[in-house]
């Protein structure tokens, strides 16, 4: 570790000012990726802006069929939230399965999606649910937000303030954990919505989370585990590493999709 300037602003305006005044600022939302990387000296920001003290950042509220989750809500808070549970229990269940208790009590939804780790769970959930990411400047559809591995549509200095999720008809998440890290080696979130089926895959794609057209079409026509059987899932564009080849990941996408649909009912 090395010397770093720490800020804990009470408002978005102060946060933006702190970012603007720093040589190289990083936003600290939960620190579950940022702090280990800083300890290993793989990241070395001059200033860290802790946004957890900003008013409203940890609030979770329901309006109509939509739940608004503050960006600094921890995974444990989302997992245990009656509001999230009432709108989308599958998202609460996803949050309950992230990392371990220590991670769930520090890591936040905003931090997770801003980092957009290719093996993180939330990107799959928010993409499949067609969530809206709210920042200090604008609202971004999930389809536009996740742009590639560790990259998002966020601009420099832009701060996620909340995530809006509308209730799906049915939804579930099935995750095959990497045996070592227990991150998703393949995670598939399925959602049945008014516009049809949405299927998002994490842990597998070379460019991070992605939607799978074939699975969406099949499930849009016939929402059942059997519908998955006929879908060809290509290994093209999938990651290969010491834990899983692209072929194995492609196979697991089908297995996890079937299990998710079965769980969604």
């Amino acid at each position, binding site marked *: *570790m*090395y010397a770093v300037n720490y800020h804990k602003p009470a408002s978005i305006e102060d946060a933006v000012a702190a970012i603007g005044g720093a040589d190289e600022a990083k936003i600290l939302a939960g620190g579950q990726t940022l702090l280990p990387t800083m300890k*290993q*000296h793989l990241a070395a920001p001059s200033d860290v802006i802790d946004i957890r003290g900003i008013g409203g950042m940890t609030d979770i509220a329901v309006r109509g069929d939509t739940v608004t989750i503050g960006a600094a809500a921890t995974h444990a808070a989302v997992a245990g939230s009656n509001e999230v549970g009432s709108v989308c229990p599958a998202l609460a269940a996803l949050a309950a399965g992230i990392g371990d208790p220590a991670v769930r009590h520090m890591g936040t939804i905003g931090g997770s999606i801003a980092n957009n780790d290719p093996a993180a769970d939330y990107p799959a959930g928010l993409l499949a649910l067609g969530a809206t990411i709210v920042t200090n400047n604008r609202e971004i559809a999930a389809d536009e937000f996740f742009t590639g591995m560790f990259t998002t549509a966020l601009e420099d200095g832009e701060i996620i303030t909340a995530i809006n999720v509308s209730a799906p008809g049915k939804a579930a998440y099935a995750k*095959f954990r990497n*045996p*070592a*890290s227990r*991150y998703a080696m393949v995670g598939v979130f399925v959602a049945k919505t008014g516009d049809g089926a949405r299927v998002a895959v994490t842990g597998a794609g070379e460019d991070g989370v992605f939607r799978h057209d074939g699975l969406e079409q099949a499930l849009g026509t016939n929402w059942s585990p059997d519908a998955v059987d006929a879908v060809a899932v290509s290994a093209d564009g999938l990651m290969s590493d*010491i*834990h*899983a*080849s692209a072929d*194995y990941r492609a*196979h*697991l996408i089908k*297995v996890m999709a079937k299990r998710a649909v079965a769980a969604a009912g």
Partner: protein
Amino acid sequence: MSEGIGAAVKRKEDKRFITGRGKYTDDIRMENQAYGAFVRSPHAHAEIRGIDATAALAMEGVIAVHTGPELKEDGIGDIITGWAIHSKDGNPMNVGAWNPMATARVRHVGEPVAIVIAESQALARLAAEAVEVDYEELPAVAAATRALEDGAPLLHDNVPGNLIFDWEIGDEAAADAGLAGAAHITELDIVNNRLAPNAIEPRSAIAVYNDIDDHYTLYTTSQNPHVARLVLSAFYNVAPEHKLRVIAPDVGGGFGSKIYIYPEEITCLWASMKTGRSVKWTSDRSEAFMTDAHARDHVTKARMGFDADGKIVGLKVNTVANIGAYASLFATATPTYLYGTLLSGQYDITNVYCDVKAVHTNTVPVDAYRGAGRPEATFVMERLMETAAREMGMDPAELRRRNFITEFPHQTPVIMTYDSGDFHALLEKGQAAADVAGFAARKAEAASRGKLRGIGYSCYIEACGIAPSKAVGSLGAGVGLWESAEVRVNPVGTIEILTGSHAHGQGHETTFAQVVSDRFGLPMDNITIVHGDTDKVQMGMGTYGSRSGAVGMNAIVKAMDKVEAKVKKIAAHTLEASEDDIVIEDGEVKVAGTDKKMAWHEVGLAAYTAHNLPDGMEPGLKEGAFYDPTNFTFPSGTYICEVEVDPETGVVEIVQFTAADDFGTVINPMIVEGQVHGGVTQGIGQALLENVVYDEDGQLITGSYMDYCMPRADDVPSYVLEHSTTVAPSNPLGVKGCGEAGAIGSPPAVINAITDAIGNNNLTMPATPQKVWAAIQEVGLPQAAE
């Protein structure tokens, strides 16, 4: 006696461990303490063209930067290999020189090239990043089989073809003849995967140099502080033994990895003298993956022949063992005398031959780790037996029964003389406890849930209680492998036991006290175990090879024999009786058949007041002993594993694991149970989860827990444990040792169970979901699950 031998006494040491009040090396802070950080090679193989520490030295708070050539100039010696092996052509082994810090060339990722000493740990690490090393990269090789190929990169000028030795054991012509006449031959290609030890406490050292007395103290994470002092003194020339004190305080696990005296500890001692500061270094987990001695890493071809009745008629094994960039302390013994000598297993085989080629590669040194050679041998034997039974259409238990050794002592064709055991009894106990009879029904029930259920055996034998000195000396060991003890009876009758064994999780403070309590009938609370400090304890050899019970505790017994003799003399004199009539029971020293007696503490007091001792007797009551056993000990057992495989994903669940062990006399069954749990879990880790991966260029891929998969509690079942005891005839207590057995016996049971479940024998460790799924794809789904 509720606290004596055989009692499940709770561990005395756990109060401090569980409440976080253990005192580990990194918990210790010296006055005037500075911090060391190492500059390490990012390359697997490179020439060092220059080191520029200007920027680091310019940082405020940086005290010094030192490099390998400076150690060499000061006469610090190269790191030694403790066991000399000869090739089958009679030539001595070739090992490359290992400088504590690289002088000209680095040969594995993580090899230290410089130490930075600074006022804080954070600063030392930042400054280490600022040291510029100019490397010229060289081609590298990580796999041992590739390192033997023509044209492979060469690591050391004095090691042609990277071949350290080509060793053999047994009679090749006899094994060939046996195989030639076989009715059936089973052949296997076996990889024994490379492991990282992962003790929970990383290595740590604090070196304290006192210039007034020209004296050094080293606090360090060692399993054998006396051996560390001997080697640091005699070979590394840090200081003569009487001016070097080594203290190994509480140590959080070792599994073999803390036997060795590593570059960092040597460098810290020298740097303390150089800077006049106490120098502390504590490894982080990333450094541990790169520098702690790794384990296993064998590639083997094995052929076993059987006659028409299933009797083994010949065994031939060819192994390539990866030793890493340098040959560490026991690295050459592990794949030879701790491996080839166990290739008779539990079986009566006349013809066994084994050839081992040991190879340098651009990887961290490989050395002994829980089991050390014996897990590799057991994996070869028990995979062969299970495979042969399937090929011959026999029950795997029956095939083993037909070949079991039943009479002892038994001389194997590969040196060992097994002294005791009852392999039939172990197999029966294991089968009963595992309800093997009910397996078919369980398999059918699993199939109804879409799961593939399989069962696998492993009948292991191992040689531990590593000793005796004369035998290991004749096989090339550089040291004797006895153990020492001193029994100090205080004037008030309490007892201090000074032992050369070292506890780093084993519970010696409890079990050793139980042995003393049992002997004299004293409460355990009156007995203290002292270990881990060369200033307090007489020379000892330390803890590894499951030797603390078989060798260490028996040294205490031998010292207690002497104490008992003197106590009887004093009591006989005081009570005016014959020595032969004196008995020691329940803390009292009595004249048998009378009411005449002395309390234990009265004898102690009499010894020290010395007012009324027999003529010519020296005052005091303190005796020492050095114990050197006459043979290894031979724990054995039957392990039976049942798995369920999810054919859709390849995920393996171990649904039942039964261990029936023969450890000889058991001192504390609860602690023995814990050792089996830990050992079996490590074995399951090897079989299912753990694997060190280097890429072709020698970069370490599994450098953190993101990629190196350690077993977690939910990866293993609740174990079913059984015992069937034959007492070890070679030592007074009759103990055999239990520390390594679980890790030795379990891997083949797991792989045998999975291959049974999926109907494909082509499966290597670790059997990850991907590999199991691929193996299922290779042969198609077994009928039962379709």
